[in-house]
């Protein structure tokens, strides 16, 4: 067993250097990727993905958006080699998606954490660590780190069958990170999480990007995608409808938004007049509302800071 455990299992960055070049910074590339589901007799049931051309670059958070049945999960499964394409090709790190060796550098969090319920959190991570041929010392180290990172230290010896949905998602994320992957595929990462869990999950995703990981996530929760993704692709009925940077796609070019704090009524009137003089149309002016998520998180944070404080009815109630 090597003394320096970092030598035993290559980190994502190290592997990236050793990997064959797949374009400059292209981690995932799909070419005309098509998937047709057929029945037992080979008759076409549904065309789940139609000629998808896509590129995901190193270090970005890429979101796959779309309603149910739009082909998001099919794309993820094709990228992982869980499904075989009907036509076209999916390349990850320049290798075919069915090539098992690519999995050395990939972490995958499925839509629901499909884990062995009879194992404890520690056993789960240890088992998946073994699949990466990690030496025992490194497995123990990574297991301890990840369990702490996802906040399951107190539950590490409990069987997963006793875990709540949020805890299961967290151990699911931990197993996806056991090999310190270069590319992480997250299928509906915030599904089933409460707002706190959602916030933590999004923060973890952002932290992973900070560490140089590439992340592909699919979700139908638009706010999550908007919060964390750098680029998105929108799928509808298996077809790519939109692709680009989130900020660019969301920018409403013919509307100007001004936000100011403690603006007097007089100043507001002057602004209205300026807009009128300029010949523009005033769409709205007033006090903005926060998001429900923000409100919920503020209340929880307040409650944690001042335990026992009761709710005060406001005038609006």
């Amino acid at each position: 067993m090597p003394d320096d455990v970092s030598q035993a299992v290559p980190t994502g960055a190290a592997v990236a250097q050793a990997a064959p070049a797949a374009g400059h910074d292209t981690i995932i590339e799909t070419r005309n990727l098509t998937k047709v589901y057929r029945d037992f007799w080979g008759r076409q049931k549904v065309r789940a993905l139609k000629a998808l051309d896509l590129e995901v670059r190193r270090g970005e958070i890429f979101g796959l958006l779309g309603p149910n049945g739009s082909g998001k999960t099919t794309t993820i499964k094709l990228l992982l080699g869980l499904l075989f394409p009907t036509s076209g090709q999916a390349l990850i790190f320049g290798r075919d998606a069915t090539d098992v060796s690519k999995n050395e550098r990939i972490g995958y969090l499925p839509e629901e954490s499909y884990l062995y319920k009879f194992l404890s959190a520690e056993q789960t991570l240890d088992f998946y660590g073994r699949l990466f041929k990690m030496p025992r010392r490194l497995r123990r180290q990574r297991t301890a780190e990840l369990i702490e990172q996802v906040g399951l230290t107190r539950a590490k010896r409990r069987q997963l069958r006793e875990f709540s949905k949020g805890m299961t998602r967290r151990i699911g994320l931990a197993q996806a990170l056991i090999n310190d992957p270069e590319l992480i595929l997250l299928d509906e990462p915030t599904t089933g999480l409460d707002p706190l869990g959602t916030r933590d999950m999004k923060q973890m995703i952002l932290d992973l990007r900070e560490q140089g990981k590439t992340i592909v996530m699919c979700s139908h929760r638009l706010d999550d995608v908007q919060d964390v993704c750098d680029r998105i692709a929108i799928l509808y009925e298996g077809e790519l409808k939109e692709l680009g940077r989130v900020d660019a796609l969301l920018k409403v070019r013919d509307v100007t938004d001004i936000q100011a704090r403690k603006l007097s009524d007089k100043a507001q009137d002057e602004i209205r007049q300026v807009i009128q003089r300029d010949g523009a149309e005033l769409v709205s002016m007033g006090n903005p509302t926060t998001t429900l998520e923000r409100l919920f998180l503020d209340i929880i944070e307040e409650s944690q800071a001042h335990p026992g404080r009761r709710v005060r009815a406001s005038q609006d109630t």
Partner: protein
Amino acid sequence: MIIEKEPLPFSEWLWSGANIFSSDFWHGKVAVWGPQRWLLVFATLAIVVFLLGWLVSILRHGPVRGTSLTFRVLQSTIVDLLCMSPRRVWALMWLAIRDALRRRVIVVFAVFIVILMFGALFLDQDNEHPVRLYISVVITTTSFLILMLVVFLSSTSLPAELKDKTLHTVVTKPVRPSEIVLGRILGFVAVGTVLVAMMGAISYLFVVRQLNHTHTVEQAKLEPIGTNAAVEVEDTKGEGEKDREAQKGGNAPEAAGVALIGKSGETNHHTHRVFIAPDGRGRLDWNKDHWHRATQHESEGKITYKVGPAEGLLQARVPVYGKLHFTDREGNKKERGINVGDEWSYRSYIRGGTPASAIWSFENIRPDRFPKRIPIEMTLGIFRSYKGIIDQGIPGSLLLRNPKTGLMVEVKVFNAKEFTTDVHTITRTILPTNVSRMTLVQTADGERYVSEDVDVETKNRASFDLFDDLTDDGRLEVWLQCLAPDQYFGAAQADLYLHASDRVFWLNFAKGYFGVWLQMVLVVAIGVTFSTFLSGPIAMVATLSATLGGLIRPLMIAIALGTVYGDGKQADLGGGPLESAVRMVNQQNVVVDLDKGIQTDLIKWVDDRTQNVLWGMAQLIPDLNEFSAADYVSYGFDVPDNLIAQWTITVVGFVFVLFVLGFLFLKTREVAK
């Protein structure tokens, strides 16, 4: 013990030398064993699978891409097989073990314990062969429970993981399909191994504790029978002291005092006849496959008898078998004796009161192997053409012949009873009662034994040396003749053997359980293979069917070759499956041909195809009964190491093929839906 299919010598088994390209072979007329058959099946399967895969790929993707994909799969298949990681296989094996434990496999062990606890109450306590009964019950019960368990475990595990998608998380790690299949097989084999070992240990204790016993002998129940009686303390089944004393030319030494005879107390639902010699040594006579030693003790004027444990009960005899042939009443050498009308042609018969003989030819009979004596054990079939006196048995004679010189000496005259194993000990120094010379001469029809007188000097010899006079370079012939006119002795090759030595019983018992273990390993491999491409319930039914097919494989082959009826020589008597069904419905007997016509042609055409398919299936299915050593162990015979080696190689070969098949199925299927 009945051995219908004699184990082949290892070297012959390893390479039967059959020409697999001959038409005889493809029509099942040439038997092929061992690795050659395995190679043939494997190569055929590999080619069929490859061609089918290629065809499907071309149909789905067109000729160019289809061919390219097929060869890519072939290449990665070879890589997947050669580059398996032991560490990952170990991890997946560990997972399979955990999965099995989660499913409470230990319940099967609990069921087994309950069966042993209460099953003994329902066993036939008056059975004449309790060892056979107990051992066959424990081995059969173990085999049944273990096979049912592994059918369930091995066939449902992978489909369950595919259904709840836990396998998705595994296959998205750098795990090869070959590692998943091998990990599963090894995991379930490990669980089965522990269970078989536990059941074997408990069974051994159960058998030993149930059968070991002693008896009480009370002086009041013994009666004097005279002063000159000698007791054969060493004589368990006719062998021993008395014979040796007699062969030395003297009578048994007279002992002072009075010999006693009587009946022992009842234990384990039986009693024994008791003999106590004047010198105080005694024995409880042979009953229910065992006997006991008894010794007389005297303290404070009171005489008591101490009876030892059962002897001859749990043994592992190493038999030396000879090649059997016959002579008819004129002395003509024959492959077989007379058929007395028995459909089961295992034994053939010799007629009493004639020179017709059953002759066993032994080899390598040397003093270093049998230093003092040769125990001959035999179990004969008896066919009575008239009832006679049933209790007395049928008189017979055993003779030894030197194959080179033809010198033949009668060594025993005995009374044989059916289903009873008689033991006759031949000491090195033989005192002849009848000496002759039997010469084998060539005739126009074959070979014939001709009896000749021996010279006076030989005839008057006081004794013969077993090895110097009656063997030639280790070769010895044992002749059996029936002395009762118009009665018949039936003999098969395994009916008479030389008892060379004994091995440790517990080791033989373990070999019996090794056979169960091999069956378990095969069923695990079958189950895992089916589970790679079938859903849970279907995989379970398929595994169960293959297991049952493995248990009735000889019948499948007999149906395929049309040799079910009679002794197997009248092929196609009664037709194939469909023709038989038609005959049953129409109540037609098997010897009358069906009416000629299109209907009959169609029936025969369907039968022909069905039989071909059945023959092909039978070639693919392993014969599970082949690995059963229950008969050897229960009849007290050592399971030959040669047989164990053949079984092991066969199972390893089958498991390898099943593993490759399972791996290919898993590799070429979509894990997700």
